[in-house]
């Protein structure tokens, strides 16, 4: 597989070499221009602003501000919860959609993509309309059991989940389709229970794809703004996640504070990117192993 990719790179190089020089220079410059203007400069600027008062200033902005501290704490609660639930649901969905044939399968498959298409603000609005405690559709039930969803952390988790549902399942479905169910059937005939089959056969085969999906899901969950903004109600020290906090600080003309939080979000995103690259290599390596079968 590695050898293959090297070969394609070479042929690609030769093809480009056939184009006129000016054309090549134009295309390459265009790529650089877009990358610099849209990605690299803003990225550097976040850190320049964040550290404009030095490292101690950055630290102060992050941890000596009770509200900011709370937003970090809240994000560390909401994101793992949403990712965990989505991971379990994503695996279950991928399993169901690939191993069984049932009516409505295609519909379900399409529905999984809906969160990518629907604007997060719309999703947030729907949650507010359905689950608020005064006029919501489920208000009587929620009041009775005393469970507050909107303007509280469960709403934040739900909104985050909605936006990140597709990542795990979307990653796993093609992988599980390619793997087929021969190994699972072999395990059944050897007397394994469904639980044993999942942990000993299915999971080890999909682990890299799963991790990949979880990382993407996590990155998106941390950065989610729109849906969370609507359902949070923006209550200080209660429903401000980091992404919301960035906007709040910015509105309050606290640029260094805003950029400090933004820099942490960016660092998280960058580390996700690095993890993704490492994982991609590992996946390629394990694919190489199994494709030589």
């Amino acid at each position, binding site marked *: 597989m590695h050898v293959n990719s090297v070969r394609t790179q070479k042929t690609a190089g030769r093809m480009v070499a056939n184009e006129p020089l000016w054309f090549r220079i134009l295309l390459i410059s265009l790529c650089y221009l877009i990358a610099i203007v849209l990605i690299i400069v803003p990225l550097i600027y976040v850190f320049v602003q964040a550290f404009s008062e030095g490292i101690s200033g950055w630290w102060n902005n992050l941890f000596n501000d009770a509200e900011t501290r709370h937003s970090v704490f809240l994000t560390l609660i909401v994101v793992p919860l949403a990712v965990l639930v989505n991971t379990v649901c994503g695996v279950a969905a991928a399993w169901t959609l690939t191993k069984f044939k049932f009516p409505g399968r295609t519909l379900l498959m399409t529905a999984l993509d809906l969160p990518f298409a629907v604007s997060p603000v719309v999703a947030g609005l729907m949650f507010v309309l359905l689950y608020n405690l005064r006029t919501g559709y489920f208000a009587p039930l929620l009041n009775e059991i005393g469970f507050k969803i909107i303007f509280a952390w469960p709403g934040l988790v739900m909104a985050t989940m909605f936006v990140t549902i597709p990542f795990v399942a979307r990653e796993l479905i093609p992988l599980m389709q390619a793997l087929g169910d021969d190994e699972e059937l*072999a*395990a059944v*005939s050897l007397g*394994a*229970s469904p639980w044993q089959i999942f942990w*000993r056969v299915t999971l*080890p085969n999909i682990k890299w794809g799963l991790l990949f999906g979880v990382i993407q899901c996590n990155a998106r969950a941390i950065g989610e703004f729109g849906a969370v903004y609507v359902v949070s109600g923006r209550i200080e020290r209660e429903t401000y996640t980091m992404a919301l906090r960035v906007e709040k600080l910015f509105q309050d003309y606290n640029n260094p504070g805003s950029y400090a939080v933004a820099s942490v979000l960016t660092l998280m995103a960058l580390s996700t990117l690095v993890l993704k690259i490492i994982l991609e290599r590992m996946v390629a390596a394990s694919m190489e*192993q*199994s494709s030589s079968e």
Partner: protein
Amino acid sequence: MSISVQNLSKRFGDFVALKNVNLEVPSDSLTALLGPSGSGKTTLLRIISGLESADEGSILFKDEDVTTRSARDREVGFVFQHYALFRHMTVFENVAFGMRVRNAPNGEVRERVNELLHLVRLEGLGQRYPSELSGGQRQRVALARALAVKPRMLLLDEPFGALDAKVRQELRTWLRKLHEEMHVTTVFVTHDQEEAFEMADQVVVMSQGHIEQTGTPQAVFDNPATSFVMDFLGNVNVFHGRVQSGRVQMGPFSLQYDEYQNEEPRNATAYVRPHELDIDRSPSQASLLGKIKQINPAGSVLKVRVAVEEFGVELNVDVTHYRAKQLELKLNDIVYVHPRSVRVFMPETDYVI
């Protein structure tokens, strides 16, 4: 353990995979399910294993009805066509899997796995991964894995389908030997009649979801029950003719045919195997004049193609090397071909008289 299949039917949507199949597999026998693709042989095997469920009918292991039992509880060793080895496990762990899920103690597992790796001649390869093995080695790992849990029977789906000719031949001989040592009831699926005849005690010929014939290889080969079996079991020469009053008439041939004494003439098809045709330089009673188009050596015989203008057909004739030398056969020679024996089948649709 004997297997009894009773009135089994299975559909996939509109496709009838099996219709009313009955089969007895004697204990400790090696049985081949032989048929072209789509004949239902793999479906039958999977239903016996419990990996697939039947729409109607029942499966008995000895006297015990296992129809509603899941594959997990049937204690059947199943070897998949493409092996289905666990790709993330070593050879050792693959073989150990069945015992691990039963929580067998480590020492026992180690002992049994090593014993099996020795049996399938893969000692020392326990720490390899399936991707590091050749096709033949993977097949043997799959077999060892199936045997590890001491199954009541062994079911193999096209066990040698994906292997090259030489390895296939070796494994056939080896599996036959292994079967004789282990005495475990074995059923395997194949589309290769040579494989079925070489290995099996009992051959079950299937076509379009039903069983055409069951019997020992010799019985099936010598007395094919239907024209399908005759056609499927290797090369045949086909003649179309008529039967009437105890005789079958095909062009210049007229042979005795006691099974049909009616005076009403009926269409019939006669089949002659290549080794049942004789070649000669001079005409004899009921022989056909033809010209040699092709001579190919194939193992112990020469395959000779003779074009017979009278019928507009080309006949396949197996000639021994000795006989060919004696007659000094060469291309474009004019020869006489005559059948030593003929099998006649009347199409069933013609029964409406």
